[in-house]
């Protein structure tokens, strides 16, 4: 055997065994996510605590420019009121400044002080920090430094600001083009955690598995189901009848219409089976309701239930046609501007095909 051959065999064996060792380590101990794969979800997840109750994402640019939003606006759906309020309060124009947002609900803060703002919205976009700080100062807000990050706290000049102040709202610049809007205590915890390299949502494998499934969604939310049920304050009779759900996720893809997928993970296969029965019942009921309106009934087959084992999923599509069908009264009442003839963008037509 020549030296060249020997080197080749050794090199080949080395590649083989190194690869196998990586696989073996991943199999038994886990390889850090991102070493061999792009980490799922937005980069801002590094600011989300590992024990966050709910994490949500919305591609603001995509939703704002979608045909669905334009259609809903024509029927008097979303107005510019809320958008203007935020612009007045913070100087941030949602439609033009923000690309996407990541939001989460902090479980610890929720437990500690139910009245305080326990959520945080991380907005990624193009922000002029100097302009926004000047704007805040004009409004009587105070700007302070907290561990190298600029933190804006509302003043107490008017009733709205007093309310924000009492709720502990604050705005912080966490990085270039990244603004955090939410509870003061939550923001400080995020900044502390970031400085101390604390565990983040990326270190929560159960949550990351759910987030990884939301690829390409225009918006999504994942979290512990008990976080929703406790916030929703459902009646005891209802909560007793809901099979034990551990995790939930909801995602939607906005194009001409919106395609929504809701998933729930139960504690056992039996619980999942029960949940499927309940969902089936609700779907049947909805179909019966739609029976009064044949034009709407024609759109119902897009509701699909699925899932195996402990997972239950329900997907449905709300098409622009269904929106047209569901909102005739609004159109006829003359309260809102009459919609122009449906004009689908080319992209939505292609995707529908």
């Amino acid at each position, binding site marked *: 055997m020549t030296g060249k051959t020997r080197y080749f065999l050794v090199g080949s064996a080395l590649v083989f065994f190194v690869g196998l060792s990586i696989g073996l380590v991943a199999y038994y101990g886990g390889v850090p996510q991102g070493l061999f794969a792009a980490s*799922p979800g937005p980069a801002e997840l590094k600011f989300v605590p590992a024990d966050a109750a709910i994490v949500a994402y919305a591609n603001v640019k995509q939703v704002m420019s979608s045909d669905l939003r334009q259609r809903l606006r024509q029927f008097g759906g979303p107005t510019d009121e809320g958008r203007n309020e935020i612009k007045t309060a913070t100087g941030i124009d949602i439609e033009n400044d923000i690309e996407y947002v990541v939001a989460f609900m902090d479980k610890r803060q929720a437990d500690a002080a139910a009245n305080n703002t326990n959520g945080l919205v991380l907005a990624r976009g193009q922000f002029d920090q100097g302009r926004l700080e000047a704007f805040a100062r004009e409004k009587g807000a105070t700007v302070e430094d907290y561990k190298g990050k600029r933190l804006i706290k509302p003043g107490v000049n008017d009733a709205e600001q007093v309310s924000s102040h009492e709720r502990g709202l604050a705005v912080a610049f966490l990085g270039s083009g990244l603004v955090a809007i939410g509870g003061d205590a939550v923001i400080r915890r995020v900044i502390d955690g970031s400085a101390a390299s604390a565990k983040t949502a990326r270190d929560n494998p159960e949550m990351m598995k759910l987030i990884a499934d939301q690829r390409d969604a225009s918006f999504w939310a994942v979290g512990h189901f008990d976080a929703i049920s406790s916030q929703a304050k459902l009646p005891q009779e209802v909560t007793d009848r809901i099979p034990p759900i551990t995790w939930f996720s909801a995602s939607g893809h906005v194009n001409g219409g919106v395609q929504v997928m809701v998933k729930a993970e139960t504690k056992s296969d039996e619980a999942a089976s029960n949940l499927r029965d309940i969902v089936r019942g609700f779907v049947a009921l909805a179909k019966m309701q739609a029976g009064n309106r044949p034009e709407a009934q024609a759109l119902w087959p897009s509701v699909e239930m699925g899932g195996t084992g402990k997972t239950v999923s329900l997907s449905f599509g709300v098409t622009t046609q269904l929106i047209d069908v569901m909102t005739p009264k609004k159109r006829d009442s003359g309260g809102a501007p009459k919609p122009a003839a449906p004009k689908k963008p080319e992209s939505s037509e292609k995707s529908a095909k």
Partner: protein
Amino acid sequence: MSTTTPDPNVTLPTAGPAMSDPAMPGSAMAGPAMPGSAMAGPAIPGSAMAGPLMREAPPFVTAALRVFDLSLSQMLWSRRTIFLGLVVGSPVALGLMLRILDAFGFTGSIRMGGAPVPGAAVFGSMIWLLYLRFLVPVLGVFYGTSLIADEVDDKTVTYLFVRPISRSAVLVGKYLAYVVTTVFVVLPSVVVLYLCVQPLGHGSLAEGFMSLLIDLGLLGLGLAAYGALFAMIGAGVKRPLVAGLVFAFGWEQLAMALPGYLRKFTIAYYLQALVPHSMPADGLGSALQALFRDVPSPTTSLSAIFAMIVIFLAIAAWMVEKREYVLEQ
């Protein structure tokens, strides 16, 4: 594969000093026809083998290992290996490309029915379609058929067969060299492909690890089985490459698509029964296969593959021992 440039570090057992010279002047083996075993019979007049320096022939295993040692470098650094590198490198290049696309955010690029395909499914399809159904038979055909046929074509078979070792040891040694060459090229490429492709679509390395181990074992078995079959064809047929290609891409494809027992006379039938990934729906062919599918049990498949390796090699060895190779002038 030729023995015209033997490795200077390797010394095959010789009958005397004159045997180390490949020209072997005066040897009876230099003639065009070589009936039976070259070493059988009394000392050849005029040959250096006659005389007191004649050594005892080494045992079969030792002889086979020496031929393996000699053949490995020749096989590994032949022009055929460039072909092997290209063939094996293309899936790896594809995997790297997918990985780079993923790194740059083109993550939803692989879709099936509108839904993004996870990396495990991509990796499984590549093992199925690229490796098991194409690469392994191709490597088997090109290397397996050439084990003896190349020596005959290059008229160098003489120099191997005049050694005081059995011809079957030559075949087995060369076969082992083929297995090591292909395994050492193919399996690392599969591991690299696994590292590149498996994490795509947020797949996990851990999830696919056990499948990878089965895939690696399966590819090794496939290379050994196809190699043995084509070594047999190479030992017995005059135009082995054509016959091998017809078998791999004619007979196997046809028999696998047809209902009935014909598929049992293919290697693919037993290999596919052991594949841990579900068969990708790649058109009418796979739909038909799924329709008439009968899958042998893993035990049956493994037994059949091992039996084929032993039987094909035994027949190949018998053919090499008995066949009279006529070297064309």
